[in-house]
């Protein structure tokens, strides 16, 4: 695959995206709403055959944002998918672990630290926090664990 073909593949996602930026040859930033995360990530992993790197969760005050980082190593490209979770009281998004076991830990980590619920995760148990940590207290949320 070359750069144009990769861009072409990513552009087929357009209906599901709210934004597509390519600041340099090897960097993509896609934005989408939470309900499209599963389809977008599955397309990148299975059809584009990009490698899952990690995901970053960010507390944006009025929403939660998860940035899924994928790498397309053949072209040294990093594809970032920024997904917005608008429901601040019940931040929920589909889990990508069922087709991508490499995401199991990071989804559990985001669940622990930011209180994101991953629907369909095979095992959404504590990974980072201790077993006796109080329920409903998420240390990475703005304002800390208080």
């Amino acid at each position, binding site marked *: 695959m070359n750069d144009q073909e990769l861009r072409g593949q990513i552009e087929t996602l357009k209906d599901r995206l709210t934004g597509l930026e390519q600041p340099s040859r090897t960097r993509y930033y896609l934005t989408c709403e939470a309900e499209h995360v599963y389809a977008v990530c599955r397309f990148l992993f299975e059809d584009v055959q990009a490698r*899952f790197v990690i995901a970053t969760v960010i507390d944006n005050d009025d929403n939660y944002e998860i940035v899924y980082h994928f790498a397309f190593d053949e072209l*040294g490209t990093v594809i970032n998918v920024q997904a917005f979770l608008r429901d601040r009281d019940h931040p929920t998004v589909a889990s990508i672990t069922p087709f991508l076991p490499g995401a*199991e830990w*990071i989804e559990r980590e985001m669940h622990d630290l930011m209180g994101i619920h991953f629907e369909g995760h095979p095992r959404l148990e504590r990974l*980072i926090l201790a077993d006796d940590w109080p329920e409903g207290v998420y*240390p990475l949320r703005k304002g800390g664990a208080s």
Partner: protein
Amino acid sequence: MKVAMQKPVLPVGPVHPLQEEMEYFQLTVDGEIVTDIDVRISYNHRGIEQISETLQFDQVPFLVSRICGICSASHPLAYVQAVEELAQITVPERALYVRTIINELERIHSHILWVGLAGHFIGYETVFMWAWKYREPVLDLLEAITGNRNNYGNVKVGGCREDIDPELVPEMLKAMDPIAQKMEMLTKAVLDDPILHARLKGVGILSKTDAVRYAVTGPTARASGVPIDVRRDDPYAMYGDLDWNVITQDEGDVFAKAVVRLLETLEAVKIVRQALRQLPDGPVAVEVREIPPGQGVGHVEAPRGETFHYVRSDGSNRPVRHKARAPSYVNVPSFKASCIGQKMSDVMITLAAVDPCYSCTERIAVVDTRHRKVLYTYEDLLRRSRQETERIRRRFR
């Protein structure tokens, strides 16, 4: 058979004064064969991502170099590359060379350390002693450049903090000769040993499909036939301009992982020599005044795989979010694919083959599925691993 995975009986608590890191592997066994594995981490979570948000951009490299003592060049480099990307900073060429040299020396000492420990786990104490001896001159070189054997603290946003003294370059080149010679000797000794072939081949296989599904990186991926290496795929520092090879093997077993690391060490020697010979004159840093709003990613091929950092800035002097992912975070969960079905005597070396920090493996307890009591401790497993080698050795006599 339903497997009970609730609180098992542990021989050692999650925090123990003799261990520097806390990780816990719970193996479920049926007789000699491992039927399930569970990993618990984060007994010592330090909240580094959160702390990073409270520091200024130029303070963060000192923080992230403390994520790991062995990878203390990779983490800050990935971070500064992320910031340089978001602020569009061009780094002087000499600084890129210095970064290359330090990172490759780090790879050499880290891989030698792994070879030594792998030898220790299967009862090759000579390999262990050799490895420790030959690693020492590499640390001396790092100390000569940066003032520290580990935790070099040498990169900063915009370049490097310390330059390599021009008078040091011929000495370093000279010092590389015995290092290369000893590494070649060690590589040949391992690759030509029929007992090691018998002991390590076909053990702890991670298939190419599983390597992709678990998204593993570094030598763990390359030994399973996944040809990825950030240094070649998305070149940073000076790797794009130097002549070296990406080492891959197709077998995915422990032997393949050993081959990848040993040959990579020789490639790293090649890179350091070229970089030292071509080291250009000039400054090692540019002045950075402000970091604009934006986001950037930086990734670096650390000894264990890809170290990935993501930084977001809102235009203030601190990152609003900084994500750091170390390679073991994706490599360790692949034990689910490589350990199940293995014999107990092969588990030790299978776990060690992805090169997690070795203290991790000291937290093993084997639980009987029917009675949920502890059967083996770390010492038992180590003894069994060595007995297996001894058994093969006798066959060769």
